[in-house]
């Protein structure tokens, strides 16, 4: 099941580089070409990141996690705490009622809170993945899937009851200083490029990671864990490491998301299991689990479809979304990349004998 091995032939490499350049140029130009939807585009990159980090677990490691949202949400909250707490009494700020104080930051304070916030978010994602990982990665298959689903809900409830971060009242994130349209554009651009940067970092890091021994090891675990263990691979360590890589990027991603969305709610924004928590799975599946371009393609298609449904099918958009989910899972379990591999194997760098061509469809 060799999926994401390095492209061996010259043509593929050149194509790859050109593609990256094209996508890269488009991505950098996009906020200037479509200034009205910069926020939407930032969220698109967030979707790309969550799809890729999910794919590390589901596609490469073979552990289908429904709880990756935990790291995302933790990142949002940790960053929020670091961005707010040093400058005002956090408890008062998030309290319901009269004591909810106002918060105006200077640019220095804002950035001085954001930067450590992002770092801390990465750290919390990493640490939580290790903490939960050693415990929960012992579960296999569907137990792991449902166990992580339960974990996601559980963590959401804990945060929903934590008064320090406002419990159910949520947190209003601090604003980039300056008022008016210009400042909002500035902020949108700042976060767009941060998201783009993170997405690029995630994709290239993961791409590199999958070419190393680490990548081979986790693929081995996916293919047959007991054999891998018998071969001497320290499966637990590799599994935890994979999850902590996901957690790392998800944490930062969450922190950025919280700032873009401005109002953080434990059950709807941060730990939105039935929402973002499931969409990350769908995007990866739609694009093609375990493939390199899969999550990106999946994210593009899913995000675009979702937005189209919202614009044109208002009132029934969610039913349509549910239908889309079912269709993806039932009819495209191998995803777009799987379909491409079946039809045009040469495109993904696979060499197929003429005699074996008929068996190429999986």
């Amino acid at each position, binding site marked *: 099941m060799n999926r994401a091995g390095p492209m061996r032939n010259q043509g593929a490499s050149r194509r790859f580089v050109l593609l990256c350049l094209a996508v890269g140029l488009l991505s950098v130009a996009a906020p200037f070409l479509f200034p009205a939807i910069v926020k939407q585009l930032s969220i698109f990159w967030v979707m790309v990141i969550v799809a890729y980090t999910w794919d590390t677990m589901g596609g490469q490691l073979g552990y289908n996690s429904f709880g990756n949202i935990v790291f995302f949400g933790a990142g949002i909250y940790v960053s929020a705490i670091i961005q707010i707490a040093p400058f005002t009494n956090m408890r008062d700020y998030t309290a319901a009622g009269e004591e*909810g104080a106002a918060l105006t930051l200077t640019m220095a304070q804002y950035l001085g809170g954001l930067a450590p916030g992002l770092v801390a978010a990465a750290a919390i994602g990493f640490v939580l993945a290790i903490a939960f990982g050693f415990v929960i990665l012992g579960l296999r298959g569907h137990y792991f899937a449902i166990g992580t689903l339960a974990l996601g809900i559980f963590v959401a409830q804990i945060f929903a009851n934590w008064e320090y971060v406002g419990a159910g009242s949520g947190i209003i994130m601090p604003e980039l200083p300056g008022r008016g349209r210009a400042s909002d554009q500035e902020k949108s651009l700042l976060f767009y490029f941060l998201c783009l940067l993170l997405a690029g970092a995630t994709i290239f890091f993961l791409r590199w990671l999958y070419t190393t021994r680490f990548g081979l090891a986790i693929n081995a675990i996916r293919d047959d864990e007991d054999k891998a263990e018998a071969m001497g691979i320290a499966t637990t360590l590799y599994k935890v490491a994979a999850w902590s890589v996901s957690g790392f990027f998800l944490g930062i991603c969450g922190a950025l998301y919280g700032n873009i969305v401005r109002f953080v709610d434990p059950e709807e924004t941060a730990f939105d299991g039935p929402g973002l928590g499931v969409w990350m799975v769908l995007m990866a599946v739609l694009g093609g689990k375990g493939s390199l371009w899969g999550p990106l393609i999946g994210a593009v298609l899913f995000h675009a479809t979702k937005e189209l449904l919202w614009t044109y099918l208002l009132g029934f958009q*969610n039913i349509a979304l549910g239908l889309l989910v079912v269709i993806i899972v039932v009819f495209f379990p191998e995803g777009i990349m799987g379909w491409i591999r079946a039809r045009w194997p040469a495109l993904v760098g696979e060499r197929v004998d003429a005699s074996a061509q008929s068996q190429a469809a999986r």
Partner: protein
Amino acid sequence: MPITRMTAVALASVGLIGTIAAPASAKVEGDTIVLGAAVSKSGKYSTNGKYTMNGYNLAVERLNAMGGVSVGGKAYKLKIIYYDDESRGARGAQLAERLINQDKVKFMLGPYSSGLTKAIVPITEKYKIPMVEANGASRSLFTKGYKYLFAVLSTSEQYLASAIALAAEKAEAAGRKPSSLKVALAFENDPFSQDVRAGVIDDAKRFGMKIVVDGRLPRDLSDMKGILQKVKLVKPDILAISGHAKGAALAIRQIAALRVNVPMLAMTHCDSAKVIKKFGKDAEFALCASQWAPTLSYKDKVFGSAGDFSKLYEDKFGEAPPYQAAESAAAVLVYADAFQRAGSFDTAKLRDALAATRMQTFYGNIKFDAAGKNTAKPMVLYQIQDGQYKVVAPTKWASSKLRHPTPSWDKR
């Protein structure tokens, strides 16, 4: 070949993005003043979102029928662009941006619920777009220094204040000290209910009352028996509950089921939960906070009296208006009045005109303080007596006397 295919995909994506980015309607004015609103047409707040929309629409219809709004000597009609926020804050915020950036709306009406208002207001503030809201009562909306937010409704801490005051009054009349009263709280874990709770705690503290139960109800609450059992064992004098319509319905039903005896039960959202219709006798004696009552004697030139509004609403929508609809209609009246006084569509001038509002509407008196909340309208307290809502507080508007204490279940 492959590059062409990929380029095609890329172009298609750009095209997709383009269709999403295309602005819906461009002009803000012409002969029509365009207002924008994100309301909950679906999701958990959809029932109240519908009432909000009904209120907005009824007011716009009425104003247009009466000749529109006169600004600088010219008459303009009103129109509202709606989007469905699905009862989710993130969605509401996104739609607010869309309304402001793409639809070029310059005047916003509020969504339903404090949570959604909380999610949207940072955006309207950023863009300096005035927002007059009628359904977000949480005080924390008004402590953040927002300059463009105005709320016609009474803020949440006032919801149950008169209930606590009445309890203290009755205690004194019975020869007990108000500080000897025990208060039990059960509040949903969302911005609005938690705010009401903060208000109740403040009031209780002022009288020196003791809080003996302080329960936080989860948002997907389906069963309150645990906390009601505790209330049953602890025997408080007052039980205050707020959990939107679901909390109200569940509370009435389970209090009857578990036969919890409390001398005073004070709740919010009884009318939107339709507790009388659903539970009949079990709902008797419950106290309900309301922003408005059709029996109040406020009046204005657009709708007439509160009773007139109620009749108009009932004729059009087939049921009596819950207060959510009334306050939403009032928000539109505030805009109309502000436009007329400002004599211009400049948002800064309009904002100042809004801040200087001093008017009486069928819904109540409206005067905004520096933070944007309405300080001129008191909350109303109903009690369910003989299958009807009777106003028992404030005394000026009371039509009945409070029946207290609530008799125990074996005597009912």
